[in-house]
């Protein structure tokens, strides 16, 4: 096993959740690798520290408090039933229900929209969690939850009712592997999976909607990339980026660094029909559309990266 393989199993080793044969392989590596041994030992120190968190200096509310809250809930219900027995109360309640129903229906639609966003963010969160480790497994999260269907380009265009840009190809060096349609709550989304010469997976999503809540509460950063307000997120050792071009939202997962993000944004941008040339100005003036992303420290900066030999991790390029 190499360092990367061992580090993937480090928590499982530390928590005694590894199969015995894997333990032996990891231990073989640890005997010869001081750096990995140090990390395992630091996991142990973290556990010792965390043991102190088991003591909490406060107490839970007494049962009387919980019981009172439960009683208040059932009292409200019983009072409501008792009120129903008098005619004026019945009329008042009927009128109240009518108003409440009107308000409730409106709230329901707002709330269900909110819930949809939360579910999508949760599923996409799982996808991002898995992506760097195992892109195929990550993909299954979305395919299973959104009735993923492998399609040809023609079939994708027919079902989407527009010609998607992302499945048409990425720059030289990337080969299109699969195209899927995902039936998401907001819309139908086309997912295009590409591989490069090393077998690395890059996925591009395209759909028509508001900027999605897919990045959940991960730290994000807004940059201007070829005139497009682009939301960037680190996905373990890779980068994800999302931007809007007219009504289309493109989300790219798996870029190596900012330079590659910049290259792919530029490439996909050029695939748009020329008639949409005014989009760039539109996007510039609109600024950040990423209102669903929680950006505690949104930074708008120009994306200027030219040094291909820079070996820093992708995220450090942004600092």
């Amino acid at each position, binding site marked *: 096993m190499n360092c990367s393989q061992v580090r993937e199993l480090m*928590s499982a080793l530390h928590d005694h959740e590894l199969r015995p044969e894997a333990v032996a392989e990891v231990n073989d590596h640890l005997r010869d690798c001081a750096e990995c041994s140090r990390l395992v030992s630091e996991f142990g120190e973290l556990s010792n520290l965390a043991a102190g*968190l088991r003591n*909490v200096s*406060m107490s839970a509310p007494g049962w009387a*408090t919980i019981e009172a809250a*439960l009683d208040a809930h059932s009292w409200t219900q019983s009072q409501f039933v008792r009120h129903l027995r008098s005619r004026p109360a019945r009329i008042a309640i009927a009128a109240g229900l009518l108003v409440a129903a009107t308000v409730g229906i409106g709230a329901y639609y707002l709330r269900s929209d909110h819930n949809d966003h939360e579910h999508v963010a949760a599923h996409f969160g799982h996808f991002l969690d898995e992506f760097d480790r195992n892109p195929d497994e990550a993909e299954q999260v979305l395919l299973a939850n959104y009735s993923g269907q492998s399609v040809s380009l023609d079939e994708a265009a027919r079902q989407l009712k527009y010609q998607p840009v992302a499945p048409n190809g990425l720059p030289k060096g990337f080969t299109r592997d699969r195209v899927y349609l995902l039936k998401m709550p907001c819309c139908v989304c086309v997912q295009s999976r590409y591989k490069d010469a090393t077998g690395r997976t890059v996925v591009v999503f395209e759909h028509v909607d508001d900027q999605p809540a897919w990045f959940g509460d991960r730290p994000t950063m807004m940059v201007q990339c070829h005139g497009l307000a682009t939301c960037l997120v680190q996905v373990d050792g890779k980068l994800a980026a999302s931007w809007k071009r007219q009504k289309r939202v493109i989300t790219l997962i798996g870029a190596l660094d900012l330079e590659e993000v910049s290259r792919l944004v530029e490439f996909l941008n050029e695939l748009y029909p020329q008639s949409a040339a005014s989009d760039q100005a539109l996007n510039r003036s609109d600024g950040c559309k990423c209102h669903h992303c929680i950006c505690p420290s949104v930074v708008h900066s120009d994306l200027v990266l030219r040094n291909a030999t820079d070996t820093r991790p992708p995220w450090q390029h942004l600092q």
Partner: protein
Amino acid sequence: MSVRSSDKPRRFMTDAASNGADRGVNASRRTESIMRIVERCRQGDRHAQQELYEEFKDKVLRLVVRMVGQQDAPDLVQQIFLQTFRNIRQYSGRAQFGTWLYRLAINECLQLRRRIHRTTCCTLDHEPIDDSMSWSLQSENQELLGRALEGIDAGLRAIFLLREVEELSYAEIASVLQVSAGTVGSRLNRARSRLREELIELGWEP
């Protein structure tokens, strides 16, 4: 031993079933006893509700304090148990009751954090772990850990607490978070690495 990187991914994690088999007869009896209490709770038995509350309140409090801080913890614990008793008919019995309760508790914690985040757009202020702690190196480090936990993603914090504080197995955590055991391992790796980075930034010397 040489392992080619092109080898197909192998299964390294232990089975949930083998973990389950190790729990022993006492755990099984305890589970049955809790299921009986849960059944009575479903029928609205107030004594059973109290028994269930007494059984789980400290575990839920401990998790909630570490997830959202001491200030909001009592109200949130109350809210979690009210939700538990209102929704207990939805508990199917397929997972352990504790797992179901942890899932509900974590969802409530994450919802509260989202509400706070939406309304204030800032992170939670640091709350000391325990004011009565003596200033030994160990307690200083524990306070650092409390602060480091606040600095990492809430989902990573939850998984770290479920493992290190609640001492759940990977199979149990997988059931709480509804992910695979492999995902539990990789998220724990990330949680520990992020915590380590935060701690070192705060001055921790491993």
